[in-house]
């Protein structure tokens, strides 16, 4: 955008002050993560005798290996696996059931359609935090404590994604369904061969948002995974702090924090454009 120059954008000294302001902002935002990274590469004695160093030390492999292989309550590798299953389960599960129900609501006329639509719509309003006690009882009643299905299903039970796909399907030209019908294609053929390929970008954008949403869950795993082997990494970090007056094993805890951040950050950075699109879409 070469035209975007002239009297409004600053030149010379002002230009550099703009960069300076931004760089200071970026550094402030980065600092907590830098510190965590440094802490994950030094030894415990270096941390507990403040001030800790501000430059990485030489114990990177040692600390990360100790976290991944043995951890404190459970190996962090195991917690990473649990988080991955949970995040993928939530993202893929929600996308799958939402695609089907949005297809039914948009492309069929059947008794009770409006009722279904409003029931689904109601769920847009209520975060899991609000109904934790009764949901916990339901999950416990099914014997799903400390299980992947217990981690996944309650978080799929909302209709944000259905709503998004409905909005998208409404913009698909009627001629496509008309043509499919004239050709004698059955509804599911139309869904699989035409609608699904057209929704590719929307599905990918939603996947990014839902993956991060699932990965970053805290309260729900905290309630239902009492077995350390089933902890997810985000909730497991807090469990690594000793109760009482003991000193926390900071290098291992900080290595775990870094490991907990890496997957969602990689997803956001590598799919930046899809991510921004998903964010804007899901807030509409």
């Amino acid at each position, binding site marked *: 955008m070469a035209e975007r120059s002239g009297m409004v954008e600053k030149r010379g000294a002002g230009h550099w002050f703009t960069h300076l302001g931004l760089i200071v902002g970026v550094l402030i935002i980065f600092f907590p993560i830098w510190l965590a990274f440094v802490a994950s590469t030094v030894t415990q004695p270096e941390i507990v005798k403040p001030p800790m160093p501000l430059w990485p030390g030489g114990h990177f492999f040692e600390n990360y290996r100790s976290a991944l292989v043995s951890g404190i309550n459970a190996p962090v590798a195991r917690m990473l696996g649990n988080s991955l299953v949970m995040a993928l389960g939530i993202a893929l599960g929600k996308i799958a059931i939402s695609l089907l129900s949005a297809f*039914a609501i948009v492309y069929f006329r059947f008794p009770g359609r409006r009722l279904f639509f409003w029931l689904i719509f109601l769920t847009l309003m209520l975060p899991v935090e609000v109904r934790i006690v009764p949901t916990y009882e339901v999950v416990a009643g099914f014997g799903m404590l400390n299980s992947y299905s217990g981690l996944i*299903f309650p978080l799929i039970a909302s209709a944000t994604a259905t709503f998004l796909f409905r909005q998208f399907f409404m913009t698909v030209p009627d001629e496509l369904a008309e043509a499919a019908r004239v050709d004698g294609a059955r509804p599911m053929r139309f869904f699989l061969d035409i609608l699904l390929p057209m929704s590719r970008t929307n599905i990918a954008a939603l996947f990014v948002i839902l993956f991060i949403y699932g990965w970053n869950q805290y309260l729900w795993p905290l309630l239902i995974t009492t077995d350390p082997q089933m902890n997810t990494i985000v909730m497991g970090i807090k469990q690594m702090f000793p109760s009482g007056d003991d000193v926390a094993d900071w290098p291992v805890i900080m290595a775990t924090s870094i490991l907990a951040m890496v997957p969602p950050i990689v997803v956001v950075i590598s799919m930046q454009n899809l991510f921004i699109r998903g964010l804007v879409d899901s807030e509409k």
Partner: protein
Amino acid sequence: MEKRVTFKGWLLPVLLLLPQIVVTAVFFFYPAGQAVWQSLFIPDPFGLKSQFVGLGNFQYLLNDPYYRASFVTTAVFSGLVTVVSMGMALYLALLADRLIKGSGTYRTLLIWPYAVAPAVAGVLWLFMFNTRVGVVSWYLGLLGYDWNHVLNDAEAMGLVVAASSWGRVSYNFLFFLAGLQAIPRSVIEAAAIDGAHFWTRFRTIVFPLLSPTTFFLLVVNIVYAFFETFGVIHTITSGGPQQATTILVYKVYKDGFVGQDLGGSAAQSVILLVVVGILTVIQFKFIERRVHY
């Protein structure tokens, strides 16, 4: 809005809807109904039967000084998180928008704290300000300031606000930058020709044109501060010192799971449900208006 072209049959659509209906019925409507139902009862101490108390739980809550204090705490907390994260984001977005090129690079650099879970953000900030090993608290000590968020209410609040706002800056920055870049250049340049300086332009042109974005972010950030910051509170302060950082969502958890007061916790859930309802209505009203723009 309806489709003109539809397929025939009713069995297939019902089957298609079934997975979603089952999942939402079992894990959403039933528990939500239970929350409302339980809020009308007090279970006896052995959990064998419960006594119907009507709105007694609500009455008790609204007269409970701790619950009222939690309301005030939540208001202060979400107000501060909203102002701090939006203020910082607007400042950075205004700077990035002034650049002829390179705003994309800064966007990439600023975007990713969004991906950091609130609970992890809590651990990072706890580490910086830890009373024993924290770097920032140590340097504050050198300056003669004795930081102790474990004992000091205001410092505890400041710390949870900072940790909650931190990752949120990215999100707000994205929306503000998009909003700023949608403002026609010509309008701003016309004002510049008329001799309006940066602040005058910002006050009279940019900020009013940005108001839809600002209002939207206001609602979204309040919802975030209400419901998604549980991880920050739980990792940093556990609601303390005493009750100083016990926001409403944290209190539902504490009374329901730690205190085992099911009726009271359910009543709190219902009150929160009303709060979410109001916020959602405000949001939808606003979106309707934006669509008709």
